């Protein structure tokens, strides 16, 4: 009986599903955690980048003489100094590290200046004289496709195009009772991570180049530096430093910084640090693609969504970077989380003479979901149905097919997210609300992982070492960006090995320790690295179980390890559910025997048994047909429902968001506190996208508001009440049933707000952001129309 009490105590102690404190939070809160710019090295030099002032032109001359004369300047480097290839490998390799003959956007890097201190480097960069013959830039992305005079990429300026063909939309529209067709526009969104991009390159005497910096994807950085310096992959060691926010903004751009730092470091054989200042970061690094959507959808009287026809164009800027993958995700998510038998989608990402756009939380989907979810409300209204009922009749459930024909076999918690939001808010569409107050709904979904667009990268490695003293060190190739990966992965390792959470720690992600594990994007770390770690930990556990069985004199299947203790027990279905819920034994344990795990570890060490292991996981297969858009593009989907309550000031056009309910099917929340944090943060970023964030470009292609006082992101004064709701429909292939979701909280906020504004004051805004001016003008038009 005593044993049973112990046992139950232990069963409660697995950290999966618990609100354990963030691993790195003590470091962060005391200032002890070091970010890239906090790191120093003997003889460290500082770099600054010379950039193009023009959107398009031919470089005629680069004159470094004046800069080189400045005291403290150690060198100026151009493309001519590059020992390898002058290109950054991402999907294609069209982006140079440093411009050669042409510049294609304002802020394009041309040269790197290195000096003994940062101030001198930045001053010297301004002294490098670059003579550029200006050419007419192509700035409007809607004019880019097949532009008659300006050819920036291929024959038609299209980086990539996708199609989806399902059913017979033309015929289906003919049978629709209501049809709605609108154009929607969305602007740039800047990541505005609080830590600007930063990188350090340290050349070692043995020919290794070590790179440390703020980044999402150490392997992208490694590939870029090896290409530019012409080195083998084994000689470039990329280590992620603490990274102060990313949101996609540190996916591809760090490759550029790493090369800009590594080139002078390699040439001068001295460590070089490069930190972008805020203005430089905002004007020259990636952002969310501006989008334009023509969205036509139709339904029949019975409230069935019958047909969708979409043309979707996004602005890729000067180089292709990640645009093809961004467009892919946008295309797959274009219909929202609904059944529709007749779909035609043509999507394009085009080249312009503007800053290359790239990854940003949601990755091509927030733009089109703004259109899709606005359409759903308009259709519902025309049908005389309320927005909840119309969605209920069309939403995806287990057994349904998506627009690409993917049959959803499990883990579809969409309907429950809707029910939970309705329950929590006690809102019904029929309820009368106060004057100028409105409610707006949105439902979205998120394909977890890289999907078919990046299937070749969809693998992860991990290794785990159980030390003789019982402490555990693990390594993975994915990175901590603030999303809480380290904590969640530590929970998974602790659970699998049966050791206390506090005894587990992670090494800094380092390309010299783990095999290429792909990028830290697409909400993939929990599932991919989590599964690789489970596999590695299982191997170590097997060694422990074998040893413990011998020590306890019982069969291996009766050994149980939890929280640093080893027990014998009759076989119980502990991990019976995919969610990994701990289910207690059905009968009291009848056998006796227990040991501290430490004794077992000691014995293994004494016998020289291996207490380390590697894990390697590849994602389940995905597919996508280029001609028809048919296939299973993602391994699993996360699902969400958002409800926004707003009040509109008719005098000023201001939209005040009073409250947001946001429910997400995450499979399993390994750490509910972290999952809530992702919802709260994503919702507020979504509100920024919906209401205020807008980057403006002048007629010369210059960004006119590259600062945090002119590009406005939500402050604490804009923060609203957010009700995060976690729904758990386990994903059988995920660790403890978990699936990734952290991008999703941003994705459906803008349409929820636009729908709420319509509900409040009757105006429909189809262009983001919903600034007071836009809302006010719409109200004026509306009142004149009456």
């Amino acid at each position, binding site marked *: 009986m005593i044993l049973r009490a112990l046992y139950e105590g232990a069963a409660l102690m697995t950290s999966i599903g618990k609100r354990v404190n*963030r691993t790195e939070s003590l470091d962060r809160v005391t200032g002890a955690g070091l970010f890239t710019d906090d790191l120093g090295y003997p003889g460290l030099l500082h770099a600054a980048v010379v950039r193009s002032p023009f959107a398009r032109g031919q470089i005629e001359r680069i004159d470094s003489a004046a800069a080189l004369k400045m005291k403290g300047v150690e060198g100026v480097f151009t493309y001519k100094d590059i020992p390898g290839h002058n290109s950054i490998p991402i999907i294609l390799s069209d982006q140079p590290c440093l411009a050669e003959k042409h510049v294609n956007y304002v802020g394009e890097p041309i040269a790197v200046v290195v000096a003994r201190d940062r101030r001198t480097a930045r001053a010297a960069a301004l002294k490098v004289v670059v003579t550029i013959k200006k050419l007419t830039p192509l700035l409007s992305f809607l004019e880019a496709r097949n532009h008659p005079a300006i050819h920036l990429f291929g024959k038609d300026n299209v980086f990539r195009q996708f199609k989806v063909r399902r059913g017979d939309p033309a015929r289906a529209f003919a049978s629709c009772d209501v049809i709605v067709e609108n154009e929607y526009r969305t602007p740039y969104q800047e990541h505005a991570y*609080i830590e600007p991009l930063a990188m350090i390159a340290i050349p070692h005497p043995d020919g290794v180049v070590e790179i440390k910096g703020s980044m999402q994807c150490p392997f992208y950085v490694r590939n870029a530096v090896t290409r530019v310096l012409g080195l083998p992959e084994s000689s470039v060691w990329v280590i992620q430093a*603490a990274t102060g926010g990313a949101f996609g903004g540190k996916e591809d751009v760090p490759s550029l910084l790493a090369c800009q730092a590594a080139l002078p470091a390699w040439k001068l054989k001295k460590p070089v640090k490069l930190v972008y200042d805020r203005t430089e970061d905002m004007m020259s690094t990636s952002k969310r693609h501006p989008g334009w959507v023509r969205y036509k959808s139709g339904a029949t009287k019975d409230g069935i969504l019958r047909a969708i026809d979409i043309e979707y164009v996004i602005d890729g800027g000067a180089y292709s970077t990640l645009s093809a993958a961004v467009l892919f995700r946008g295309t797959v998510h274009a219909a929202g989380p609904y059944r529709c038998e007749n779909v035609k989608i043509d999507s394009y990402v085009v080249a312009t003479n503007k800053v290359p756009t790239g990854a940003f939380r949601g990755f091509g989907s927030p733009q089109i979901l703004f259109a899709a979810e606005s359409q759903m409300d308009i259709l519902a209204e025309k049908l005389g149905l309320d927005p909840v009922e119309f969605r209920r009749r069309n939403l995806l459930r287990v057994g349904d097919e998506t627009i690409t024909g993917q049959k959803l076999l499990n883990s579809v918690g969409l309907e429950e997210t809707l029910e939970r939001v309705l329950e929590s808010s006690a809102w019904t569409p029929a309820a009368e609300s106060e004057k100028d107050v409105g409610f707006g709904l949105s439902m979205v979904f998120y394909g977890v992982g890289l999907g078919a667009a990046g299937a070749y990268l969809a693998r992860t490695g991990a290794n785990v070492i159980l030390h003789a003293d019982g402490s555990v060190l693990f390594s993975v190739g994915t990175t901590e960006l603030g999303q809480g990966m380290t904590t969640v992965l530590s929970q998974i390792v602790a659970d699998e090995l049966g050791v206390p959470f506090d005894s587990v720690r992670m090494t800094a992600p380092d390309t010299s320790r783990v095999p290429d594990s792909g990028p830290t994007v697409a909400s993939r770390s929990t599932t991919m690295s989590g599964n690789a770690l489970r596999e590695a930990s299982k191997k170590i556990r097997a060694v422990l179980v074998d040893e413990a069985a011998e020590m306890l004199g019982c069969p291996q299947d009766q050994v149980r390890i939890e929280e640093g203790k080893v027990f014998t027990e009759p076989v119980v279905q502990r991990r019976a559910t995919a969610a990994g819920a701990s289910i207690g034994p059905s009968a009291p344990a009848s056998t006796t025997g227990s040991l501290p795990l430490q004794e077992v570890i000691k014995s293994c060490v004494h016998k020289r048994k291996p207490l380390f292991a590697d894990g390697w996981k590849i994602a389940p297969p995905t597919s996508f047909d280029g001609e028809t858009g048919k296939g299973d593009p993602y391994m699993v989907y996360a699902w969400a429902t958002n409800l926004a309550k707003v009040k509109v000031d008719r005098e000023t056009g201001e939209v005040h968001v009073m409250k947001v309910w946001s429910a997400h099917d995450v499979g399993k929340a390994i750490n509910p506190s972290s999952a809530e944090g992702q919802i709260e*943060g994503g*919702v507020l970023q979504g509100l920024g996208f919906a209401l205020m964030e807008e980057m403006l470009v002048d007629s010369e292609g210059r960004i006119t508001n590259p600062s945090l006082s002119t590009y406005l992101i939500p402050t604490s004064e804009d*923060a609203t009440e957010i009700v995060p709701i976690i729904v758990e429909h386990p994903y059988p292939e995920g660790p403890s049933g978990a699936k990734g979701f952290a991008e999703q909280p941003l994705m459906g906020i803008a349409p929820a707000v636009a729908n709420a504004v319509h509900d409040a004051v009757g105006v429909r805004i189809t262009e983001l952001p919903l600034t007071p001016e836009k809302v006010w003008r719409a109200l004026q038009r509306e009142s004149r129309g009456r």
Partner: protein
Amino acid sequence: MKLSFKLNGKKTVLEVTGGERLIDVLRDTCGLPGTKEGCGKGECGACTVLVNGAPVCSCLMLSSQVEGKEITTIEGLASGKELHPVQRAFIETGAIQCGFCTPGIVLSAAGLLNRNPSPSREEIRRAVSGNLCRCTGYVKIFEAIEKASQYMKNRKGGGSRDE
């Protein structure tokens, strides 16, 4: 010029030009990298330190302006091994994601609680409005500051709290 001030409780004397930014003096001269630079223009608040108990952007202050003053950086907020109630509450509430803005927000919150031990949600909102956080949506930050206020009351029985 010779600059003397109190830094994290210790009398400090430095030889400076007087024109350096305080953030550079703290990070480079004094070796205290906990003060972060996010914009260099007083827009983001990541470099917030307490000057005589009140939050200030250290990127906008020159070294000569701190003569005779008392500066607290994030490194000096805890008393030995005991965390400041705001630090403790931030950890427990999950108010930290990437953590780059955290030193600045923690100090703004500590500054608020110095002058107002029982702030309302509105007062908290206002007090940290100069500190941008892009990760958390501020929800757990507000909760943490409320929790810290509670901790301080419990600890000091509601008395005055000069730092």
